[in-house]
């Protein structure tokens, strides 16, 4: 205790800050790397059981995604939706809330936007009606997320359970509305929107021809920037993070925590809902039953791997978008379901290695002094 190794007092803050930054970086980067290694190992085993060579399959996976413009376009399209659902989950987690309902919030946002689109007169420029669509999608998703938020803040119902239950309720309701009232005869989708369709990326870069990537990707990047500013630079975001880190301390510090809860769930739902525009405005121009399948749950994976950081979310969305598209690319050699296994393995491995890596790093840092 008495004879502590001394460092120059002036240098201490800078050195400490750099060490802390390094520690944070290690904690953020190591778990995903460990997870990818484990996933690659599991992938090797699956590929070998199918009698194929792992090298050939992984090469095909890469060539079918980042190896050509069409594949890349598909990756970007999938990553766009995942960025929205990932941001949605990340915002909830920053407030200490687990939003498992991004799946139905995404669907509700897409549905409301599509219905609004069918009511518009034709021929209005897309940029003019875009704010209306943003509002419609945000309301659709926000109502579902906000409902879980109010159930939590007003009645103390746990958001994990209520968002799961709301997934089933909302998807059944949307299925009913689509089938009974809004579908085009003999299909499971609504009529096409009459105004507001957004151009695909292939309109600017012809090489993307045929892929679903569209300019909603720009909306996703704007959403990432706004989310970052909101979480780390605004007063409301500070309160949100405080409530997430230590609700009692936040309450003591003057934050009305139940208020933060329902607002966070409202925003979380709205962000997921806006993700529905990627499909409705950018790709098919209508709402189709089941278009959100899987994107909500993968949003949890994206937030987890991206460590609830908006920039991390983008990178993680690209990773999971690549895997999703990669499954189709390798289907000739191994069943595309292999990728579903790998995605789950990545989630489990990251969730498991985050606390473990943190513990190991702490141990490694402590041992030289001990």
């Amino acid at each position: 205790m008495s004879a502590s190794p001394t460092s120059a007092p002036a240098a201490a803050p800078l050195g400490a800050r750099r060490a802390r930054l390094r520690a944070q970086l290690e904690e953020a980067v190591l778990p995903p790397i460990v997870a990818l290694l484990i996933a690659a190992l599991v992938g090797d085993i699956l590929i070998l059981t199918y009698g194929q060579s792992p090298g050939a399959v992984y090469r095909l996976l890469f060539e079918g995604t980042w190896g050509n413009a069409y594949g890349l376009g598909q990756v970007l399209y999938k990553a766009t939706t995942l960025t929205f659902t990932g941001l949605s989950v990340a915002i909830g987690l920053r407030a200490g809330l687990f939003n498992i309902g991004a799946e139905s919030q995404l669907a509700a946002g897409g549905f409301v936007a599509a219905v609004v689109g069918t009511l518009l007169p034709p021929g209005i420029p897309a940029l003019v009606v875009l704010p209306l669509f943003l509002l419609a999608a945000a309301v659709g998703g926000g109502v579902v997320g906000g409902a879980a938020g109010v159930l939590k803040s007003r009645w103390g119902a746990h958001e994990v359970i209520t968002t799961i239950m709301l997934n089933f309720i909302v998807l059944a309701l949307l299925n009913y509305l689509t089938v009974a009232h809004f579908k085009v005869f003999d299909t499971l989708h609504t009529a096409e929107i009459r105004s507001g369709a957004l151009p695909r990326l292939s309109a600017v870069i012809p090489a993307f021809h045929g892929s679903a990537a569209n300019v909603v990707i720009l909306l996703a990047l704007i959403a990432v920037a706004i989310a970052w500013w909101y979480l780390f630079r605004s007063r409301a975001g500070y309160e949100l993070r405080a409530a997430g880190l230590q609700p009692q301390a936040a309450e003591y510090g003057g934050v009305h925590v139940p208020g933060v809860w329902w607002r966070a769930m409202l925003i979380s739902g709205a962000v997921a809902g806006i993700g529905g525009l990627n499909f409705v405005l950018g790709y098919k121009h209508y709402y189709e039953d089941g278009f959100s399948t899987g994107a909500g749950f993968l949003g949890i994976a994206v937030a987890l791997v991206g460590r609830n950081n908006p920039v991390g979310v983008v990178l993680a969305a690209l990773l999971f978008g690549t895997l999703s598209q990669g499954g189709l690319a390798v289907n000739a050699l191994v069943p595309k379901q292999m990728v579903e296994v790998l995605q789950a393995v990545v989630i489990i491995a990251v969730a498991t290695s985050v606390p473990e890596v943190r513990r190991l790093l702490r141990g490694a840092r402590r041992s030289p002094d001990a």
Partner: protein
Amino acid sequence: MMFLAFLAQTIRISIPYLFASAGGVLSERSGLIALGLEGYMLTGAFCAAIGSYFGHNPWFGVLAGMAGGASFALLYALCSIRYKADQVVVGVAINLLAIGATRFFLKLLFHSSANSPRVPGFSVAETGSGIRALAHNPLIWLGALSIPAVAWVLYRTPFGLRVRAVGEHPGAALSVGVPVARVQWLAVAISGAIAGLGGAYLTLDQHQFSDQMTAGRGFIALAAIIFGRWDPPRIALACLLFAAAETFQIRLQGVAFVPAQFVEMIPYVLTIVALAGVVGRAVPPAALGKTNE
């Protein structure tokens, strides 16, 4: 006759719910959220098809189904108890893993992306109300017994007392010498095996496995656990109630004064109502979900 047929169908539908929620309540009472029930069931259903197909006997299917459900539960236990990973994340991933893995191995073993070939099962041709056919299926009896058995374990055995102590206050349990982690491992493993039986029932009743055949039944079982306030007798009633609503909807198809989708919503709406405490609050075990602290 009408009534008997209604009853028979309600029982048939309720069996997977009874199995899965009997397993789930054991896990939840030990402090581990049973989000992976759907995954245990699906794996159980698939392994039951493998066991019955290659063993030429449905009882091999039963054993394989239990083993399949238990193996996924052990994976959950490893991540959340040993490595203190977040239970919700791992639970969600277990379900995704079960969907992907059963599809992959369906393709590998049976060269199909939809269903397995016909496997030996328990069901016999239905005559009349179908009650007699039910009585010939041993899994119906096991399913009906599963909840009383779990209730007996929870409330009448030392192991059950330990499970409840660990789920309410692990610190206190530890201080009087209860091996907390071991109790949780065991509770989770058994929960997976029982939920796996629920999946095996589906496969052996329909004589085949089909892709995603559990179709959300694990989540309905979770809903029944919460609506039943983590108490086995009430959970059994909840399972029967949900199954009766489903039967009602199937029987009224075509008459259609209520759309099917609204009947589907009943379990989930009731669960939210129970959690929100509109009529008597559903209070979970105190340490539920907190293995990572």
